[in-house]
């Protein structure tokens, strides 16, 4: 009379399925979200294009060639054979003869790196503040009031003041005006866009820390740090991911808005926002100069949003599998 015989009826008739890791579950769910897959693919494509592109298309984005100014993109030749086009400038040139393809690539580099860096900073601060405020009741009040305070800061005037105050020291520190402005813009966008993340994370943590598994962990003497790392953070990962993708989109848009307003990077340093701003006066004659950077910004932001949507569904075990 062994246990095996007694409970024989309960035995599996077939061999068990291979155990699956959490991440392959996530991937399965993610794949089912078409928009997210497209978004992720496009983001990867854009990122690779701006990273590798300048090595393949080696025209200097800032080189002036006034004789070849105002060229149209190559596709215009399809319906207007008299247009000034040429394969040496497939996207055409601007009013000073700078190659638009090269400007798009190096402009994308600036916009994307600002977006990623600012998003990471915002994420870091937001998560830290959110977890601390949610977990330690004493700090909750001061930290959330501080969040409200920062939330009420208008970003554009703040940036104008910061550019005035910190421009010179940062340029000296970074060794070049582009580097200095990069640090400044990333820092400002980062420290003014973490509040949403902090609020969401705090809410989640407040709910989670009253759950039984946290109580169990605490009752066996787990320290606060370990509870946060092992039990809380993995459970708030999905809202963090979502706000990260939204943050990336906001950062790219904010950088574009700044370039559009003429504060920020030096006027000859291309970013997508700057290309867009420069093209506005000649929008009717050269619509492509507005369309190309505009489409690039919109598609990037859109793809990031879809990616975030898909990630949220995939990372949340309650939604997963439905």
């Amino acid at each position, binding site marked *: 009379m062994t246990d095996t015989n007694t409970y024989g009826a309960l035995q599996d008739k077939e061999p068990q399925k291979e155990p699956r890791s959490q991440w392959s579950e996530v991937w399965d769910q993610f794949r089912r979200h078409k928009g997210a897959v497209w978004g992720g693919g496009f983001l990867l494509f854009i990122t690779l294009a701006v990273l590798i592109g300048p090595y393949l298309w080696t025209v200097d984005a800032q080189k*002036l060639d*006034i004789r070849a100014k105002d060229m149209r993109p190559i596709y215009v030749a399809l319906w207007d054979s008299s247009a000034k086009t040429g394969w040496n400038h497939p996207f055409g040139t601007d009013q000073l003869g700078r190659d638009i393809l090269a400007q798009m690539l190096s402009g994308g580099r600036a916009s994307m790196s600002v977006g990623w860096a600012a998003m990471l900073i915002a994420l870091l601060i937001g998560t830290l503040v959110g977890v601390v405020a949610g977990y330690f009741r004493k700090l909750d009040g001061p930290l959330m009031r501080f969040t409200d305070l920062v939330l009420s800061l208008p970003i554009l005037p703040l940036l104008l003041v910061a550019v005035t105050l910190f421009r010179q020291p940062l340029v000296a520190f970074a060794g070049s005006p582009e580097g200095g402005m990069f640090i400044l813009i990333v820092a400002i966008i980062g420290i003014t866009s973490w509040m949403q993340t902090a609020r969401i994370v705090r809410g989640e943590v407040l709910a989670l820390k009253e759950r039984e598994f946290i109580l169990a962990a605490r009752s066996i003497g787990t320290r606060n740090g370990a509870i946060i790392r092992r039990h809380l953070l993995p459970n708030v990962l999905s809202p963090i991911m979502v706000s990260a993708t939204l943050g990336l989109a906001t950062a790219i848009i904010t950088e574009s808005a700044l370039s559009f307003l003429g*504060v920020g990077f*030096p*006027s*000859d340093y291309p970013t997508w926002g700057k290309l867009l701003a420069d093209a506005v*006066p000649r929008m009717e*004659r050269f619509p492509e100069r507005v369309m190309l950077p505009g489409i690039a910004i919109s598609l990037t932001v859109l793809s990031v949003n879809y990616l975030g949507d898909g990630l949220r569904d995939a990372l949340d075990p309650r939604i997963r599998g439905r």
Partner: protein
Amino acid sequence: MKLKTLLMGAIATSAMAPAAFAERGSDGNVSIIYWQAPSIMNPFLSGGTKDVEAASMVIEPLARYNETGELVPWLVEEVPTVENGGVSEDLTSITWKIAPGIKWSDGTDFTSADVKFTYEYCTDPEGGCAQVTKFEGVTSVETPDDMTVVVTFDKPTPFPYGPFVGGESPILQAAQFADCMGAKAPECTEQNFNPIGTGPFVVTEFRPNDVITLKANDNYRDPAKPAFATVTFKGGGDANAAGRAVMETGEFDYAWNLQLAPDVIAKMEEGGKGKPVAGFGPLVERIMLNQTNASPDLPEGERSTRAHPHPFLSEPAVYKAMSMAIDRPLLVEVGYGQAGKVTCNWVPAPAIFNSDTFDCSTQDIEGANKLLDDAGFTDTDGDGVREVNGVPMKILYQTSTNAVRQDFQALIKDWWRQIGIEAELRNVDSSVFFGGDPGSPDTFQKFYADVEMYANTFNGTDPQSYLGNLLCDKAPRPETQWQGENITRFCDEAYDALHAQLAETAGSEERAKIGKQLNDMAVEQGAMIPLVHRGRLSAHANTLGGVVLNVWDSELWNVADWHRID
């Protein structure tokens, strides 16, 4: 036959209509857009062109300049000269005779007491009057009777048309501003926003930095004018939007100062609703060279002051090479088209003051490189940038935010790179750059950069006070709250002495000769690099008649004559 006669009659009537039925207020509303918004209607409290021009529809000077730069009597019977006895033989006083029958918009008479009051208002020691230079050298303003004003100067003044002449020196009503003297001037909001004037229009509502609505002045001296009953004066936006609003969409009738690239203007003109008008005054787009060191390593208060000379910009080889490397005809083509000419001079107009000493119409990169090589400023460390006594020739090049200026920056940076000078570009919002706030490090007066580009001009036809901009004591510095016109901090005793001589010289020939010498000294000694002699370009709707673009005075100088054409 009958029908034809009838039609002919109808055509004849409609053709004659504007002349036959010209009466005040018959043409409805005219809308004007200035992309810089006026903030006050009192030009004595603001130096801004936008404020001066908006106010010129309401308050007027005794005499002003017409479109050819000639002085014309406005509120007086004639322009006083030595010949007609209006200016004394010893050139120390000028007598204005006020034209009879001029009334303020409140119905009271315009008298010499108002003129005298205006002088006292602007020269009040407690007040900060923006136009006080207009009254420089004036010792007294006397009023022997209601219609006579005698202005006395402390020394012979060959050009006595400073006070009360031109849009920047209009007459205020004594009764209205009596309680607004000195320190109280800026507090009189009601008066400053709604001045009582002699001009064709009166303010009905003033919204600072936004819209001004005006209506025809019932007491205007010409009963048939103005043709428009109301004026909507919109401020704000940018040059591009203003140009479109007039030439493409026809929402506005007049747009001021469209600094836009020629191809952009041409495209707007295709809209068919309006057309651009250009006029050439003495406006010059130039690069100012900082004679002092603007390095951020220097302590605040010593930066960009004469305590520290610039490490290399005052070397003749350097600024000459920088000028030679510039292709001015190309700049004109890219930036201004019809509204620009190549110039090597600081004072390109009026014609008799235009020096012909320099020729800078051809670019010479090789020559510039040779000049620098011969002077011993070579690239010693192989990074493509020349060094002067161990200091690399890296410069910060700033200007205001404007599409044309940013194109210029990109082109000039490229040319300078070819002669081994590296420029870092920077653009500052115009309202900050030209704002004059002593607390901001980004104003053009503070000049915390090595070179900066902007345009400047002067009103009227005599450049004496404009040439005075480069006098040693006019440099902006902490002691003057960073105010002053000598932006480059140029200082040369010989220049100061020659300028003093100009102030005492009569006779236009002789004055022109000295004026040209002063211009040549400034350019030769590297105070600035003149680039383009710019025309002023504005646009008006096709249905707006009577517009005469005036570059020597307010553009709205003849707004009383504007009318609607069909």
